[in-house]
């Protein structure tokens, strides 16, 4: 170990520190990807509202079972309440990333977040 450390020169430590810091900084910045900018609310597959994720507000959508309430806050959105029996879309909680989606199937309502480019919903190799 000591023999290996002796191979490092002062500048090497500097480069390693800068590299490590760069990698550390890149994690939160890039891991989250783009930011979500728009909540797209659909009923029966047709868009009923496109709400910018800038100011807090609540939005009601009426479906066959009753009202689904969408709650918007800066940078995130959720289904606050839904008349569906199993509450999957409510339990999903806050959506923050582009292309994430909460579907309230019984009430025919979906809430999806869109970023600047919404063309892909998955990538595979």
């Amino acid at each position, binding site marked *: 170990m000591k023999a290996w450390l002796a191979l*490092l020169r*002062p500048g090497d430590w500097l480069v390693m520190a800068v590299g490590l810091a760069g990698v550390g900084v890149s994690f939160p910045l890039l891991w989250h990807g783009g930011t979500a900018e728009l909540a797209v609310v659909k009923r029966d597959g047709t868009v009923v509202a496109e709400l910018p994720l800038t100011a807090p507000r609540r939005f009601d959508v009426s479906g066959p079972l009753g009202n689904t309430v969408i709650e918007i806050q800066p940078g995130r959105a959720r289904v606050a309440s839904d008349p569906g029996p199993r509450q999957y879309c409510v339990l999903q909680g806050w959506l923050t990333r582009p292309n994430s989606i909460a579907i309230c199937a019984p009430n025919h309502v979906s809430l999806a977040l869109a970023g600047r480019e919404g063309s892909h919903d998955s990538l595979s190799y």
Partner: protein
Amino acid sequence: MTASVTKPRPGGGEDNAAAPVIELTVTAADRRVARYAAAAIVLTIAEAALPSPLPGVKPGLANIVTLIVLWRHGWREAVWVTLLRVLAGSLLVGQFLAPGFFLSLTGALLSLAVLALAAWLPRRAFGPVSLSLLAAFAHIAGQLLLVRLWLVPHDGVFHLAPVFASAALVFGIVNGLIAAKILEENKS
């Protein structure tokens, strides 16, 4: 390598005079480049046999050879060795002109460009580990850019950047230490 066309031998017959002989003079540098490139190709092939958790994350052991050549014989020979390794290595692994070939070529070219600048750093302060790290980051940056521009035209690929950068950090340091060790033990 230098090619020279020798004049027809003076004592030769008529038909000899019509065919000039092309002689390839092999210099010591040529032999050196060939030897280093062969070592790098062996490492490339050995590495291709290793399973990788994520496409693109590889130790890049052949870069040790590039570093040693750069350190001992300068940037020009390092370029030769690296490009020969990319070409012959891809031919042997069966990746020639496949996406993997262009990825390693782009990575190699960008890291050579960075090494051309890094070679000016004072050696007293910056050893092979610095060069190795800079080359590793350049390598991964080049590959990510090519992937973004060509293979996966979506910013989603940059989500993987931290993973690649971490791999570059770890393998850059390890390869640099190995190169430094080899250089230290074989001082000439």
